[in-house]
C-alpha cells in the first residue's frame, strides 16, 4: 500500500473537477541511509472520493489514508463552501483519522505546500502537523483544529470555526512552509485571516491559551520591550442581558514569568513590579478588545462562541436571538478586564552593583 501522509485540495484550473495532490511516503528506497522521502501524486475527479480513487490509475499500490495527518485546502475551495463536502467524505470513510488537521493555504494553491522542503525532516505533512500541535504551548500563534472538532463546530449553534493557515517562506531559494495565523470562517465559507499576533489575542478571548509569550511596553506606551512567559491562563467569559442589551465580559487571568525587559528592574521593588503588571494588563485587555472589534467589523462571524454560550446558558434567550445573530454579534459590546500575576522575575538581586 502507498501510505499517504498529507493531501492538498484544489480546484482544477481547466474544469469543474477537484484536484487532489497526495504526499506519499516512499518505502521503496532503503530507509536506513536517508530516512523516508516523499513522493507527490496528483489526480483529478468530479468529487473528492472520485479523485482519490482515480489516483490508482497511476499507482502500483492502493492509497492508504490510515496515517494521513494533514489536509491542506486552498482559498478557492474554502471560499466556495466545499469544505462541508470534504469533511463529509473524511468522516464517512473509515480510513481517515478523526484527529487529522485541516489547514488553509494562504494566498497560494494548496499543492505548492507539498513542493516545499521540511527543515527537520522531509515529510511536509508531518512537519505541519507537528508545528501546529506544539504551537499552543510555545508560540500560541495559531489554533489547532482536528477534523472532529471542526465538524462539531460547524454543527453547533452560535459558533463559527477557525482553521490554521499556512503559507510559504523562501530562504535562500529553499522553500519551506510556515504557519501564519488562522483563517476565519463564516459557516463553511472563508471570511478572512487573522495574523499570528491577532490569533494570540483571539486565543485569550476563547480561553485556549496553554503557554506562549506576551509582549508589551514597560512604560505603557511606545514599542513593546518587555516579555512575559505565560505559564497558566484562564479566561472567564460571562454575559448579561439587561433591558434588551447584551453585554459580554471577558476576564483573562494569567500567571506569568518575567523573562525579558529593556531596562533592568530591581526585582525586590514591589512598586515597580505593580506598575509593570498594570501596564501589561492594560496592554492585554486593549489588544483583545481590538481583535474582537476587528472580527465583529470585518468578518461578522462569531468565532468566539458567544452565541454558543448563550445557547447553553440561556436557551430561551438564544431562541430569540439566533435569527439575527450575525447582526447582533457585530454590534455586541465586549468588555475585557485582565489580571496578570508575575510570579517570578528570576533574579534575586539587582544586577551590576
Amino acid at each position, binding site marked *: *500500500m502507498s*501510505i499517504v501522509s498529507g493531501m492538498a485540495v484544489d480546484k482544477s484550473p481547466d474544469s469543474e473537477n477537484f484536484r487532489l495532490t497526495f504526499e506519499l*511516503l516512499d*518505502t521503496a528506497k*532503503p530507509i536506513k541511509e536517508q530516512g523516508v522521502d516523499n513522493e507527490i501524486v496528483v489526480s483529478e475527479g468530479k468529487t473528492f472520493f472520485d479523485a482519490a480513487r482515480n489516483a490508482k490509475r497511476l499507482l502500483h499500490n492502493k492509497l492508504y489514508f490510515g496515517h494521513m495527518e494533514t489536509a491542506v485546502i486552498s482559498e478557492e475551495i474554502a471560499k466556495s463552501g466545499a469544505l462541508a463536502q470534504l469533511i463529509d467524505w473524511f468522516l464517512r470513510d473509515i*480510513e481517515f*483519522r478523526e484527529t487529522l488537521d485541516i489547514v488553509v493555504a494562504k494566498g497560494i494553491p494548496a499543492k505548492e505546500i507539498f513542493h516545499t522542503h521540511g527543515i527537520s525532516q522531509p515529510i511536509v505533512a508531518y512537519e505541519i502537523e507537528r508545528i501546529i500541535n506544539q504551537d499552543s504551548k510555545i508560540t500560541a500563534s495559531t489554533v489547532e483544529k482536528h477534523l472532529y472538532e471542526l465538524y462539531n463546530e460547524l454543527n453547533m449553534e452560535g459558533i463559527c470555526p477557525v482553521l490554521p493557515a499556512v503559507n510559504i517562506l523562501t530562504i535562500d531559494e529553499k522553500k519551506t512552509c510556515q504557519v501564519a495565523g488562522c483563517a476565519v470562517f463564516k459557516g463553511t465559507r472563508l471570511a478572512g485571516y487573522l495574523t499570528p499576533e491577532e490569533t494570540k489575542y483571539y486565543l485569550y478571548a476563547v480561553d485556549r491559551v496553554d503557554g506562549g509569550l506576551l509582549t508589551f511596553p514597560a512604560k505603557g506606551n511606545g514599542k513593546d520591550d518587555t516579555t512575559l512567559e505565560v505559564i497558566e491562563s484562564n479566561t472567564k467569559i460571562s454575559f448579561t442581558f439587561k433591558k434588551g442589551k447584551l453585554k459580554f465580559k471577558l476576564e483573562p487571568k494569567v500567571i506569568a514569568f518575567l523573562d525579558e525587559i529593556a531596562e533592568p528592574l530591581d526585582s525586590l521593588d514591589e512598586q515597580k513590579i505593580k506598575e509593570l503588571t498594570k501596564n501589561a494588563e492594560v496592554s492585554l485587555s486593549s489588544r483583545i478588545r481590538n481583535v474582537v472589534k476587528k472580527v465583529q467589523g470585518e468578518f461578522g462571524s462569531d468565532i468566539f462562541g458567544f452565541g454558543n454560550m448563550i445557547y447553553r446558558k440561556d436557551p430561551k434567550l438564544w431562541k430569540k436571538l439566533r435569527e439575527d445573530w450575525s447582526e447582533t454579534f457585530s454590534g455586541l459590546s465586549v468588555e475585557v478586564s485582565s489580571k496578570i500575576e508575575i510570579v517570578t522575575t528570576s533574579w534575586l538581586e539587582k544586577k551590576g552593583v
Partner: protein
Amino acid sequence: MSGKSKLKRQKLIRQAVENLNHSYMESVIESSLDKNIQMIRKLFEDVDILKLKEIRGGGKKGQRYCLVFMDSMVNDFLINDDIVKPLMLSKLTSSGEELINILDKQIVQINETEKTDSMSKIIEAICSGDTVLFADGAPQVLLLNTREFPTRQLEEPTNEKTLSGPKEGFNESLSANLSLLRRRIKSPEFKIKLLNIGRRTRTKTCICYIKGLADEKVLDELYKRLEKIDIDGILDVNYLNELIKDHPYSLFRSTGKTSRPDSLAGKLLEGRIALLVDGSPDALTVPYLFIENFQSSDDYYINFYYSSFFRFTRILVFIITISVPGFYVAIVAFNHEMIPTQLLINAAAERQSVPLPAALEAFIMLTVFNILREAGLRMSENIGQALSIVGALVIGQAAVEAKLVAAPMIVVIGLTAISSLVVPRMNSSSIFIRLFLLLLASCLGFYGLVIGLSAVLVNILNLRSFGISQVSPVASFKQQNIKDLFIRAPIGIMKDRPVTSVNPVRMEIKNNDDA
C-alpha cells in the same frame, strides 16, 4: 471379510485370550512338589533365565524344597547364605501348613516373607525378583524378598531444573521413590496404598496421600477411575494419566506431573493425592489447578520478591508466546493504523521486498522453528555445535539476506521461541494455541485474535479436575488463595492451605511478641 464375520473372529480371539489369562490367574498350587515344578516349568516354558534349585533338608525325613527365581534379578549372596544354607542344615519333620510356618518363622533368614497359594501372585513375585520356596507336602509357598536389580542413580530431573534447593529426582524404582518420600514426611498419616494395574504388566502402582488433609471424595473418585482401567500394560505414568483424567481430549493438563520428591511432598502437604508407578520417574498429582502450570518448586527456595516477580513474568510470557505471531500478522496485514507511523514505514519497506504474504511467512517460520526444536531435542551432542551454527546462520542470516523472509518476522518468531522455553510445561499446549490464534489473526486481524483468545480463556475456565474447577482460586479470590497464586507470599504469611485441601489450617503462627 464381511463386517459381521470380522466381529465374530475378533470375539473368538478375545475369548481365547481371556481363557489363557484365566487359566493361571485362578489356579492354585498343589501339595505335591513335583506337580508344582511341572506347572511352573510349563508356564515359564521358553523362559531360559528362570532357575529352579532343588534342595534337600537333613534329618530323617529329608524334606524336599525347591527354590524358583529369575536369574538376573536376585541377590545371589542372599539366596546362598540366608536361604539355601539354612534349608540345607535344617532337619524338619512337620508337614502341611505347619511346615511353612516353621520355615517362615524359624529357618529361612529373610526379613520380608509372604505366604500364598495363588499362582498369579507367585508369578508376579518371580517376575519381580523374589524367590519362591516350594516345600513338598505344603499347601502354600513362601515368597522371599531377594530383589536386586540395577537402577539408575538419583539425578536432577532434566526438565524441572531449579536454581537452588534439593536436586534429587525420582528414578524408575518405585521403592527408591517411596523411600525419598517417606523420609520427607515422617507422620503416620502419610498413607501409601499399593495396587497392581495392567493385565500383562501387573505394574505396581502406588497411591499416596496424607489422611486428614486429602479430600476423601477425591480419593474415592480416584479409586473408582482406577478400577475402571482395563488395559494390557502400564509402562509409564502417562498411561494412567490419560485413562483417569477429566478432559482426555483437551490441550491442557488435568493432572499434575512432577519428578521431584520435594515438590511432590509439598503437594501432598497441600492435600493432594499422588500416583506413582514402578518404572516411571514421574508422579501424578490430583486434583490439579491451572495455576500449577506456572509454578515451579524453586519458588519456595528463593527470595519471595524474586519468585513473585517471576511468577508474573511466566504468566505474561505464556500470553506473549501464544499471541505474538498472530499479533504481528494482524498488524502487518490488517490493522495498519494501530502502530506508530515510523514503525509502519519500516514494516512496509521490509514487506515490499519479500515474496510471501505475512500470514504464510509466519506459518513457515513457525514450522521451521518447530523443526529446529525437535532436532535440538533428539540430536546427539557431537553434532550439536555444528547444527546450531547451521540453524542460526542459514535460517536467520541467510534467509533474511536472500529476501526470503522479512527481518521483523525473524525477530517475532525468535521472541516466540524464547518465550516458549520459559514455561516448558505449557509447551505442548502452546504450540497448538499459537497456530490457532495465528490462523484466526490471518483471517480476521485483531478481531480474530481477540475471538481466539476469548475462546482459549473460556476453555481454560471450564476445566475441571476431580471435582473442583481448575481456576477456583482465581474465581473465588479469597485472600488466602492469592498468596500463592500470581505471587509467592512469604512463608510466614501463608497460614492456610489452598482450596485443594479439606483441612484449611496449615500452621499456627506463634507470635514472638507474646510471652
